[in-house]
């Protein structure tokens, strides 16, 4: 039986959702979508059906939010509620049907990013928690943690500073770098608070794509096999130290097909996907 944070939506049957809801959280530019591009083929090779979904992708509100953001006339409460509309539409029309059908749902951000953004923009923390009270509790939330100093070069050398990701709406300044640093620092502080409250599993995202992927893969494998959560991924574990242990865990992970050919095929495909993802990021 699934759970929600507060009252569930009308007519939402919380039973019979056999799929897994896995959340990848983290700030802008931390590499969430790269990791999802890697996780998906890996899961599919094991015969798992995957739905990946992200903010603003709803059929109902995605376009509207994009247009509204282009105008920069969006009020803070309005923006929060527009995102909540988008989320509710995806929850009911994508996530829940996929969970019922037994899919692994990989979601690039969840209510936590939306709450963090709203709170940093001055929304009442209790209010925004109430708004998302109908959200399903995920099976796991992996938080890609990064410090602002590690984040900046990543953003600069990939896509550059974006108006909203720099919080220019709340920290208008001549200098986007200053705004970005200030806004992201606030956002990261809020994420840490949420990590404790909602017990995220924290992954150090300052390392390279491959290392982060190995940690993430180990965590996802654990969720799918139904094993209990390890202290390794708990919030309190010091970042950096558990890398070795996590790598070991990856090696112990049950490989889906041990026959010579499919196995090598799998690793080749995964390696290709990894290269694609890394290159894709570098060339953008």
């Amino acid at each position, binding site marked *: 039986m699934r759970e929600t944070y*507060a*009252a569930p*939506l*009308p*007519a939402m049957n919380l039973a019979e959702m056999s799929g897994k809801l896995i959340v990848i959280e983290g700030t802008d530019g931390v590499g969430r979508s790269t990791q999802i591009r890697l996780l998906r083929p890996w899961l599919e090779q094991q015969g798992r059906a995957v739905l990946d979904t992200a903010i603003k992708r709803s*059929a*109902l*509100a995605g*376009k*509207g939010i994009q*247009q*509204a953001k282009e*105008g920069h*006339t*969006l*009020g*803070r*409460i*309005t923006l*929060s*509620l*527009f995102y*909540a*509309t988008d989320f*509710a*539409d995806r*929850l*009911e*029309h994508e996530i829940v049907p996929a969970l019922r059908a037994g899919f692994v749902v990989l979601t690039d951000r969840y209510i936590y990013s939306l709450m963090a953004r709203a709170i940093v923009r*001055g*929304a*009442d923390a209790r*209010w925004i928690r*109430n*708004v998302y*009270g*109908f959200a399903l509790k995920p099976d796991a939330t992996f938080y890609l943690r990064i410090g602002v100093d590690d984040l900046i070069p990543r953003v600069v050398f990939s896509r550059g500073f974006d108006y909203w990701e720099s919080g220019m709406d709340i920290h208008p300044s001549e200098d986007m770098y200053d705004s970005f640093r200030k806004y992201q620092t606030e956002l990261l502080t809020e994420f840490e608070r949420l990590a404790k409250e909602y017990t995220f599993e924290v992954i150090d995202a300052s390392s390279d794509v491959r290392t982060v992927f190995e940690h993430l893969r180990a965590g996802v494998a654990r969720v799918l096999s139904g094993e209990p959560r390890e202290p390794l991924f708990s919030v309190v574990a010091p970042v950096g130290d558990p890398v070795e242990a996590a790598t070991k865990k990856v090696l112990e992970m049950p490989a889906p097909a041990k026959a010579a050919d499919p196995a090598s095929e799998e690793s080749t495909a995964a390696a290709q996907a990894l290269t694609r993802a890394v290159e894709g990021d570098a060339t953008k």
Partner: protein
Amino acid sequence: MKRYGEHRFPGKLFVVEGIDGSGKSTQLALLHQWLQSEGYGVVFSEWNSSPLVRETTKRGKKKLALTPSTFSLIHATDFADRMEHNILPLLKAGAVVLCDRYIYTAFARDVVRGMDRQWVRELYSFAVKPSAAFYFRVPLEVAMKRILDGRSGVKYYEAGMDLGLSENPEESFGIFQGRILDEYEKMVPEFDLTTVDAALPIEEQQAYMRQIAKAKLAQAKRLRVAP
């Protein structure tokens, strides 16, 4: 963020509420006319009218893709946009703001659609409390007759067809409006709504509204409308 409560702005906020066909819009138009003639700066804001979300709402309604949750949230988004861009700045500037439907409409409709009563109230906690909220109380049959006589038919969501109450739009409309009426009645004491007997002659209802508005406006700053 200020939570739902009494505002201290110089302006005044009057809202009308009631089921479709209760005559509230007619009464608000008359009040508008009178306030203008008295020299107040008056601004009118209608439910579901924000240009920002118009396309999204239209898309949802056209494709019948709205669920109780998205129906609720898209209307809250619309309201927030009007609150942040019109209603609040205007109240600060000392205008008289008139709203045809306010948060009570959402409370009634969303709860009838099955949303959690407390959740909806919290959702709108950023709204300011009106100086007066007029609730036009009308028997269901009277309101139904007014609506169905004057129009060729009722729209899908207006009739609450999404609730599957009846295959027949008119019958569905009746059941839906009846439930909304029940919700309004519960809100009269909860939010201290000013009840207007919508079965009385139009002039009598209007005289009552003006009397209450006048009392509320006694200390308000007057703004002349630019010619």
